[in-house]
């Protein structure tokens, strides 16, 4: 081998032009294919991007840990342990025990029950003058305008609104809004019942019925009479107009983080109608401010329940996002919803996490400002 290595003469010869061009074409083709595959990235997949310790965390069986945590905290505690145990938890996480509906700590069988405690009536006065009120206790993490179709997670890091709300491939945010509304148009005469009180959807949403133009027509004898058919047609088209993104409007977002000691039920932030519920059984990363800064696409990766609907200014959505300790999201008006289930299969591969999503029409669930909608439970 050494002899061959040393004695074999090196003879340089030009590469045929055709071969050279074919090689360059192959390189270019590979580059274009790579670029196109990134562009056509399936919106049902999210990339895990972050420092090395984020990748380590992403390999942990977080959903299993969450379910075990939930099961552990559902064990009935001995009565003698409840008062000191819950007081210790409250001291560590800053729970206000004075505003609990049932102040007797021995009545809470386990930490899960204590965690999902109710508040005294009147403990949270609702500001009815505001356009929007806080749906829960918590810290305002971020808020602002949706920039194009991207929502800012933190400064310099954003995620796709389409992925977050669960659009179909290549659809735009406006199309989701349009599709969501047109999928389940509720007749304007339909009545909704909230807490035993009946409302028309118009009054609940604050649409001004008085402003509807009344159409007139001449009858066979030349008299001016109301044109009911034209009125109905006009009202239908008015409704469709209401369901589009209106001129002069913009999309806003607001993120509220609930710490472990906070009251963990969420309420309606305004008068609105929830029309569709989408459940995305993603991962259950912590959503603490530290993790939000570390993991890009955190809100797209995590398990969440997307409620899509409309309020008096157009499109409205509310999204409770789960976390490792609180994998169970509960909706009072949707008993079929089950989150953090073992059956929800996840596929992993090359840094991608594929999650399943399920939609359900809610048949126009009316929600009043301050009304309890559901909450987060342990595990």
């Amino acid at each position: 081998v050494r002899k061959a290595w040393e004695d074999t003469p090196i003879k340089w010869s030009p590469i045929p032009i055709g071969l050279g061009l074919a090689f360059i074409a192959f390189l270019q083709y590979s580059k274009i294919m790579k670029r196109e595959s990134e562009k056509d990235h399936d919106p049902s997949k999210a990339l895990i991007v972050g420092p090395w310790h984020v990748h380590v965390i992403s390999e942990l069986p977080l959903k299993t840990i969450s379910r075990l945590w939930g099961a552990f905290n559902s064990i009935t505690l001995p009565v003698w342990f409840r008062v000191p145990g819950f007081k210790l938890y409250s001291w560590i996480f800053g729970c206000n025990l004075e505003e609990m509906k049932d102040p007797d700590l021995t009545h809470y069988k386990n930490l899960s029950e204590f965690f999902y405690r109710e508040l005294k009536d009147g403990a949270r006065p609702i500001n009815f003058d505001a356009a929007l009120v806080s749906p829960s206790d918590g810290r305002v993490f971020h808020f602002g305008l949706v920039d194009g179709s991207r929502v800012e997670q933190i400064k310099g890091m954003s995620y796709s609104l389409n992925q977050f709300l669960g659009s179909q491939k290549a659809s735009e945010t406006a199309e989701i809004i349009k599709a969501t509304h047109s999928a389940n148009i509720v007749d304007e005469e339909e009545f909704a019942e909230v807490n035993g009180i009946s409302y028309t959807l118009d009054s609940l949403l604050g649409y001004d019925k008085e402003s509807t133009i009344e159409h007139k027509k001449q009858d066979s004898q030349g008299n001016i009479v109301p044109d009911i058919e034209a009125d109905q047609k006009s009202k239908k088209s008015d409704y469709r107009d209401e369901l589009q993104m209106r001129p002069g409007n913009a999309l806003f977002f607001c993120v509220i983080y609930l710490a472990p000691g906070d009251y963990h039920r969420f309420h309606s932030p305004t008068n609105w109608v929830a029309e569709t519920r989408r459940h995305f059984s993603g991962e259950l990363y912590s959503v603490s401010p530290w993790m939000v800064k570390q993991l890009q696409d955190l809100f797209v990766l995590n398990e969440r329940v997307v409620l899509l609907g409309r309020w008096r200014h157009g499109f409205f959505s509310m999204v409770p996002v789960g976390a490792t300790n609180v994998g169970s999201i509960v909706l009072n008006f949707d008993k079929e919803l089950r989150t953090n289930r073992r059956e929800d299969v996840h596929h992993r591969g090359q840094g991608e996490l594929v999650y399943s999503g399920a939609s359900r029409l809610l048949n126009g669930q009316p929600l009043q400002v301050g009304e309890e909608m559901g909450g987060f439970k342990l595990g």
Partner: protein
Amino acid sequence: STVVLVFEAPENFQFTIEPGQYVKMGQPLGVI
């Protein structure tokens, strides 16, 4: 856990909160 709101509103909608502020349920988030 986290609650995210995404909504359409007139451009003059103004948030009445600060990042990092602690809010309680029912407190105003924004006005038009």
